């Protein structure tokens, strides 16, 4: 994310520096964004960024889990869905909210409490899933945890269905969805800005955590070589649990944002969103955190552009087409290493 600024100071052999910084993917995404902006206009562009931000937050969980234990956590989309319901529960039951809050101070407090509780609760859920459903299978054939993940996905969906029923349910939109601000002559919803900013802040926080802290190093070294990490004194089980915790907490944050933005949630929410977020993770280069974030936005562009050009029904198909094309032509994604690369 930050490397884009470094290129400006690059003097010696532009091509060389360009290759070393691996700026291609960033420029690609920027290019896509720029073209898209021209094609679909500012309003649609904001729509794309908003849903892209949600996909990106969900994609981070896929990519982190895949990075560390090479498992496609099929249940992650449903963890996101549970996050949306948890957020609704916190807002309505714990905080007694049912609509827009006018006072900014009050709004900030409510949002802070909501994000904190939801993210912690979802983190615990994610770590618990790992502990009971995946850890016992860590040495089993690859197929086993994949199938378990599908089972966990069914279980989560049905538990929510039992509690909240099959119908879509309204969730409080504490940020007035009709509130808009004028930025550069474009009228943008406050909730859109909030969604995008929240997602970017969380991504930066995650990036800092992973690159600057001890636990971040533990996660990266575990992902890189589990046994060597263990020999350094890293508690693998704990590190993997923390990874699930963080990934699921981010999905919880995405769930909060989803509720705030759409104001309506349903137990089936996780399936489609999960698939799209997974596509984002693959597109960005699975295992790569920045890649997942970029991928999320690209998926947002693809989907919204299809809608904007009048091919809404093909939007979903287009997303999967992106997935297949990526896997066929560049399985490492925009930023990832080649699959199975061992250096």
């Amino acid at each position, binding site marked *: 994310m930050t490397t884009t600024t470094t290129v400006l100071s690059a003097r010696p052999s532009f091509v060389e520096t360009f290759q070393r910084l691996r700026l291609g993917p960033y420029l690609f995404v920027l290019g896509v964004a720029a073209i898209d902006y021209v094609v679909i206009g500012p309003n649609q562009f904001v729509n794309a960024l908003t849903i892209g931000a949600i996909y990106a937050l969900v994609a981070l969980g896929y990519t982190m889990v895949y990075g560390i234990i090479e498992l496609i956590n099929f249940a992650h989309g449903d963890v996101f869905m549970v996050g949306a319901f948890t957020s609704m529960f916190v807002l309505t039951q714990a905080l007694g909210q049912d609509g827009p809050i006018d006072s900014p101070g009050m709004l900030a407090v409510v949002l802070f409490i909501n994000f904190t509780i939801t993210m912690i609760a979802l983190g615990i859920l994610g770590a618990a899933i790992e502990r009971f459903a995946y850890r016992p299978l860590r040495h089993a054939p690859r197929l086993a945890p994949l199938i378990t993940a599908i089972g966990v996905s069914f279980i989560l969906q049905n538990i929510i269905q039992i509690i909240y029923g099959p119908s879509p349910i309204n969730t409080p939109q504490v940020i007035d*969805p009709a509130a808009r601000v004028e930025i550069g002559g474009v009228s943008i919803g406050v909730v859109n800005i909030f969604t995008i900013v929240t997602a970017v802040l969380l991504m930066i926080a995650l990036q800092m955590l992973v690159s600057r802290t001890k636990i971040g190093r533990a996660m990266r070294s575990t992902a890189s070589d589990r046994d060597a990490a263990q020999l350094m004194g890293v508690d693998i089980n704990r590190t993997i649990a923390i990874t699930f915790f963080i990934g699921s907490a981010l999905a919880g944050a995405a769930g909060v944002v989803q509720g705030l933005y759409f104001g*309506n949630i349903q137990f089936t929410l996780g399936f489609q969103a999960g698939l799209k977020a997974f596509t984002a993770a693959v597109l960005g280069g699975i295992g790569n955190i920045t890649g997942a974030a970029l991928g999320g936005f690209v998926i947002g562009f693809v989907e919204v552009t299809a809608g904007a050009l009048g091919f809404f029904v093909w939007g979903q198909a287009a997303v999967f087409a992106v997935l297949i094309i990526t896997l066929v032509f560049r399985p490492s994604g925009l930023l990832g290493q080649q699959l199975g690369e061992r250096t």
Partner: protein
Amino acid sequence: MKLRKLGGLALGAMLVAAACNTGGGATATPGAPAPGATQAPVDKGTLKIGVTLPLSGGAAADGQPTMKGAQLAVDQANEAGGIGGYKLELMVLDHAVNGKYNEQQGAQDMQTFVGDSAVVGVVGPYNSAVAKVQIPISNDAGVLQCSPANTNEALTKPEFGALDYRKNFPERINYVRVAATDDIQGPAMAVYDFNTLKLRNLLVVDDVTTFGKGVADNFQKKFEELGGTVQRVGAPADTTDFNSIISAAKPETDGVYYGGVVTSGAGLLLKQLRQQGKTFPFTGPDGIVNGSGKAEGALIQIAGAAASAGSYGTIAAIGDFPGRADFEAAYAEAFKNDADFNTAGAYSGPAYACATIILKSLEEFLKTSPDADQAAIREGVRAWASDTSNTFDTVLGTESFDKNGDTTQPFISFYVVDPAAADGAGDWVFKEQLNFAQE
């Protein structure tokens, strides 16, 4: 209407205790079945009325009140002493799989009905897509099927391909329906939008289902004929984000028509429209007229009462019929113990009417052939019901069917959302109804 007392014979097995209290209501309801007045009070056994609807999960909100409409009619008939010496039993099969209607399960359920010779007629289905797999089976077996809610025109009208579904016996009409078809419902709203609401440039969204796309196609055709312009988008029923569709709407857009049923889609479309500051009318077929702001999963509930203001919908049936209040009271009384579905739904009345038509046909047939076997009864019921010269006094008024099995009284009723109704939760209120019999 004269009620003949039977020696407590039929009363014993009654599922709904409250049915006892509806005796008075039944006589007052125009559609109440006329019990076999001329028959001797002998017990000839049990005949079955099948009900094939999606009844569980998300589909329960549609299916359950519809099923209970049929149940009420059968309970009342039993209470009145059965028909022609027969007791009646409701045989209910649910073809919702994982909370959504499932055609293959619907086909299997129809096989179950046709395979049970005691089944003399079937009420249902709810979704046109299910009818498409069921009609070939019921047609082959010659079982009368009366749908309270199917509106897809291809199910009955040969010019839309109906003969594909009754391929084995194209001349044998076994499928009738009391709802008006979408080639009437869609255009009706088109005329209303153009003439009454004065809309000229519409965004038409359909949910890419048999019903939704069909009705939207019919709507669009008529609206364009009238001189309006249409921007057409398909959005699958589970769509949650309509913002890109709304943002892509042409600036001159002055209204929306949504073809489909409400899962979450229509409600979210309406909600997001209002959030983007679009206050123009939101119109649609019977799929969006699905209850008040208090009903879980209803359009008004999802979008909110305030946002729902300016929404117009049609029902492909008569909305204001003479016995409506009586029927709804009888329904409420009969099912007062059911926490979830104790008020009549949009298709409770039509389902009640369908059951009435089957029972009436049975009664008339047994009058002429009291000793017929089950196979003959089944065929007799079908023949009587599909005979275009016969009429039925039902809760919907006097019904009869044309040569394709469509109702000859294709009423379209218009509803509008009143945000203040239902204690401020918002509800659909009846505006007017038109008979399109001559179209």
